[in-house]
């Protein structure tokens, strides 16, 4: 007789889904992980993250907590680093660096420079502390998305974020290879999947989603959306981009 053993949905919560998405591209046997953040608390890693060393580093204008290695352990170690200075870690220290909205938040703070320049400078510093074969993975607002325009900082007129093409270009210019950029679907509150911004891949995802909701749409609404999907425009409309790139070996 089979015993009832209900499956525990490992991706049941929003946090678990987000963590799972960040872990998808990670290489096996990761030993050291760094999350760079501007807010008070990290939003992705915690002390259960599967790594030997987990560092949560806050980028700030006034450093009150410099980096002091506390030894290996599963506990999250925290520190602060200056917005624009080299990261306070030795070269080739980390296997994975997580930038959860870090690039657009940093671009908002360093508003005198273009978001692309800010992202490129940050990614070069990240590349320095990554081991060869290591990975940078992150998400940010999509510059071309109307919804991102609504979420832009009040003080600035422009969306301080990267776009579908500039995201991949910046990763390549910063020295990362095998860069991939995605739309995060349906959004940060319920991250259920990634859709590549490659035109064909994007058409597949959004055509399927459109057909699934077809019954609730009028003919005009359906046809308009069909044109948007056919032209692969959804990738420019979705408001969050997810990206990764590997430091070449």
């Amino acid at each position, binding site marked *: 007789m089979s*015993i009832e053993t209900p499956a525990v949905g490992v*991706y049941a919560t929003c946090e678990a889904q987000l963590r799972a998405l960040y872990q998808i591209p990670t290489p096996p046997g990761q030993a050291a992980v760094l999350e760079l953040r501007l807010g008070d608390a990290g939003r992705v890693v915690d002390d259960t993250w599967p790594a030997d060393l987990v560092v949560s580093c806050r980028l700030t204008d006034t450093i009150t907590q410099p980096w002091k290695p506390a030894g290996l352990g599963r506990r999250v170690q925290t520190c602060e680093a200056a917005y624009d200075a080299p990261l306070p870690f030795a070269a080739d220290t980390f296997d994975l660096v997580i930038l959860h909205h870090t690039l657009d938040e940093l671009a908002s703070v360093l508003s005198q420079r273009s978001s692309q320049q800010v992202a490129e400078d940050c990614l070069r510093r990240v590349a320095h502390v990554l081991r060869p074969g290591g990975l940078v993975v992150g998400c940010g607002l999509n510059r071309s998305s109307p919804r991102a325009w609504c979420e832009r900082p009040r003080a600035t007129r422009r969306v301080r974020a990267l776009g579908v093409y500039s995201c991949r270009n910046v990763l390549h210019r910063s020295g990362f290879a095998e860069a991939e950029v995605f739309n995060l679907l349906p959004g940060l509150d319920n991250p259920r999947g990634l859709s*590549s911004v490659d035109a064909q891949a994007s058409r597949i995802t959004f055509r399927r989603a459109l*057909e699934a909701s077809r019954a609730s749409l009028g003919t005009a609404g359906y046809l308009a959306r069909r044109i948007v999907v056919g032209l692969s425009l959804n990738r420019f409309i979705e408001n969050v981009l997810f990206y990764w790139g590997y430091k070449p070996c």
Partner: protein
Amino acid sequence: MLRFVREALVKAGAVSPQARLIHNVRLTTESTLRLDVGDGTGSWFHVKACRERSLAEEFDRFRLARERFPAYTAEPIAHTCLAGWSILIARAVEHVPVGVSDLASPGSSGASLRRQLIGFLAAAQASAKADILRQDNETFMREAVACLATSPAVSPPLRDLALSLDPTVWGDIPAISQHGNLVLNNLARAGDRLLIFDWKDYGVTALAGLDICLFALSMAGMDAAGAAAIQRKENPAGQLWAFAREACATSELPYDTFRALVPVYLLAFRYLKRNCSEEIRARLDTMLGELLT
């Protein structure tokens, strides 16, 4: 994890080691990751990856289904285990979901989908004659009843129903290997072709009529009211589940017997879903509870 997916695809001869892969990733609420992987030349593969359980048996069932119903299934390519990940690869077919309105449509497209659905059930019935591996209905139902009657997760009315069932009820039901989860979500169309997905429960039960019941219920709204209506209506003509009468005839199952067996089918489905998420089990328990009161 993506490294393992690439390795599995290369190992299966599906892509070249140098291919630049494109990924679309979906999380399920349970424990599997689903990826559509493109090789950049227009070929796409559907990859299912899981670290919590093996997908080996699911792959075997999928392959068996492909052998029996090639027109209705994608092509399974390989199953492999790498670094704790169980990875199942199939050739992807570009498709769009099928909705109630597609199947109920009076036009030629709806008629074609309905004809193919009946065709699938007829093919299942035809394969039953040579199916020496098919599950014996009595054994399956005995296991189902024993499990549901003793499980603390099952609601008391369901437990009572399981215990009160007369074993002779399923004695005369034809034995035809069932898909086991034939609901709208698992149907799609690729052009005019009807595709059926999710073969992980294929052949677990051979309780003829289960697939018809689940599909009819899925058309009727997947709730107790739908189940009650299917049970109540002697003639389904004009209803969303109108196909059920012809489908039952295809399976050599009298329609009246089918209607009477609806609670048994739902119990069997509840048993098949015993390891699913709490949300799905609770939904089924509610439906059965309402149907019984």
